[in-house]
């Protein structure tokens, strides 16, 4: 079986603003058909990366390949096959959604009126097509942002925090749209977000970035398996529960306090045995909640990264001394 084509590849991609590295030595690979989650906390360098991918800013060093061609060599051909939103979608507010799409369409050469109405219909804005964008809600602007990204029927769709500021229903609609684009329209999606649960729901591959540096990259399912499994236990009396858990050395790897709960690092397979031991020991068990989500994994990684950064900063200070 042939391996899928690499749609987007960055090698050693870096961007320095004055003395600060916003992105440093970033190596990404996005394959055809991927819904690629690009995760990172605020200020991690996600938008800077996307701005470089869409040629809004120049990398300080490193290369970007789109469809196997360096972006510097075939920028126009590559950008013709890419659509995107960078940060919050902004428009000419005094123009209608349709006029905004006409302006974007003009930059591609010739986009038919029918295509403009088609993308507006896809995001549920067909009825408001000729209203001025300044009358739109935030959610409608986000949807219009997706519409303009899809206008040229691109192969790669880059979406920077597309659910930012949306209500839960709006977030679900955008997620459903992303899945529709990936499955039914066979588009490759590059989705940045700091909402990790969102990535977990739609992405098949992902990368986590923090402080401009890549922390991990791979298949979401594989990364999940690598993540630490633990359970949150609420029980009374808590001291007795802690003592029992500490005695289960073959099952429990560690026990720590987490507010009114105990955080117990262990395999989910051993939950019945742990529950049995607690009940038999006279502990009232209120809840045992298994936790193994990408969010936890992400938080753990970013916390590690922050700690490393902090250590490094301490180390630098020590060296200065």
């Amino acid at each position: 079986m042939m391996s899928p084509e690499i749609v987007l590849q960055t090698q050693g991609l870096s961007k320095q603003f004055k003395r600060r590295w916003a992105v440093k030595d970033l190596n990404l690979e996005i394959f055809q058909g991927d819904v690629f989650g690009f995760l990172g906390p605020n200020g991690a360098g996600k938008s800077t990366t996307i701005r470089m991918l869409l040629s809004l800013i120049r990398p300080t060093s490193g290369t970007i390949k789109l469809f196997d061609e360096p972006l510097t060599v075939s920028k126009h051909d590559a950008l013709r096959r890419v659509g995107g939103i960078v940060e919050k979608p902004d428009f000419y507010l005094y123009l209608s959604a349709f006029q905004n799409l006409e302006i974007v369409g003009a930059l591609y050469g010739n986009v038919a009126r029918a295509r403009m109405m088609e993308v507006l219909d896809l995001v549920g804005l067909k009825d408001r097509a000729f209203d001025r964008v300044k009358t739109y809600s935030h959610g409608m602007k986000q949807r219009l942002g997706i519409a303009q990204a899809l206008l040229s029927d691109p192969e790669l769709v880059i979406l920077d925090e597309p659910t930012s500021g949306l209500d839960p229903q709006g977030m679900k609609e955008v997620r459903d749209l992303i899945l529709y684009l990936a499955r039914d329209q066979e588009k490759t999606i590059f989705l940045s977000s700091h909402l990790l649960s969102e990535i977990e729901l739609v992405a098949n591959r992902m990368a986590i970035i923090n402080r401009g540096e890549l922390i991990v990259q791979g298949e979401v399912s594989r990364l999940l398996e690598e993540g630490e499994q633990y359970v949150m236990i609420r029980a009374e009396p808590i001291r007795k529960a802690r003592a029992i858990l500490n005695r289960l050395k073959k099952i429990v790897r560690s026990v720590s306090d987490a507010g009114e709960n105990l955080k117990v690092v262990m395999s989910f397979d051993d939950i019945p045995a742990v529950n049995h031991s607690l009940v038999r020991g006279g502990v009232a068990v209120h809840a045992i909640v298994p936790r193994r989500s990408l969010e936890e994994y992400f938080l753990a990684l970013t916390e590690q990264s922050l700690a490393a950064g902090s250590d490094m900063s301490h180390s630098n200070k020590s060296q200065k001394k």
Partner: protein
Amino acid sequence: MSMVRLVRYEAVKTFLKKRTYLGFLIVALIVPIVEVSMKIEGGRFLQAATRSLQQDFILVGNLFNGWFVAHYLMYSLWFHIPLLITFVAGDQLAGEATAGTYRLILTRPVSRTQIFFSKYVVILIYSVMFVAFLALLSIGLAVALLGGGNLLVFDKGILILPEAEVAYRFCAAYIFATWSIVTIASIAFFFSSFVENAIGPIVATMGLLIIFVIVSVLPLEVFEPIRPYLFAKHMNLWQEAFREPIGWKEIGWGMLVLGGYSTAAVVGAWWIFTRKDILS
């Protein structure tokens, strides 16, 4: 990518924006106010202006006419019209940064150079339209209200130009005025290329104009060598059209200097625009 198409959509963006008509609105208010006031005042304005001359000369005929008033209004080309022009020219690039719409247009398969020049062409169109509007309104209304006649011009003396030449001289004057207004627009466009709000280019352009005007008129020898090269020195180029004989040499030099400033401003703006990181 067709430049015609790009210019068309840049024109749509510019001419559907309310700010674009602010200058037109102000001119549409000021010109009738001034001309109707002058009509009401009658010849008293001219009498006051020529009081000292009337001790030695007898001025005959209808010299307080539409041409005289239209010529008087051309002095607004020194400062007022440049200010109004910068409202739009200064916003042309910076406005996209303010609105965040660079992200909408610069991520497409079209070069920044093409987008840049399509925007500049629209500014040229706007400048020409604006000066043409001022010309048509001020001359048309003044002649309609006060009639025609010979044109009395105060310059390094007093000059009365025959009515047969006046239209041609106004036409030439407004062509030269357009050239100087394009220079102002180009400078505002330059400042617009590296800031993210339109106020900066307006203030910077007008500040530069004021400084250069001061340097141009200060009777200090130290500025003598640079004066011919200051664009502000040539903002009154249009006045040459009302001299006898017409100062073609001065016009040629003035147009060269102004053209040099326009070219430098556009090349500088292009250099910045095509290389800048879009962070807005």
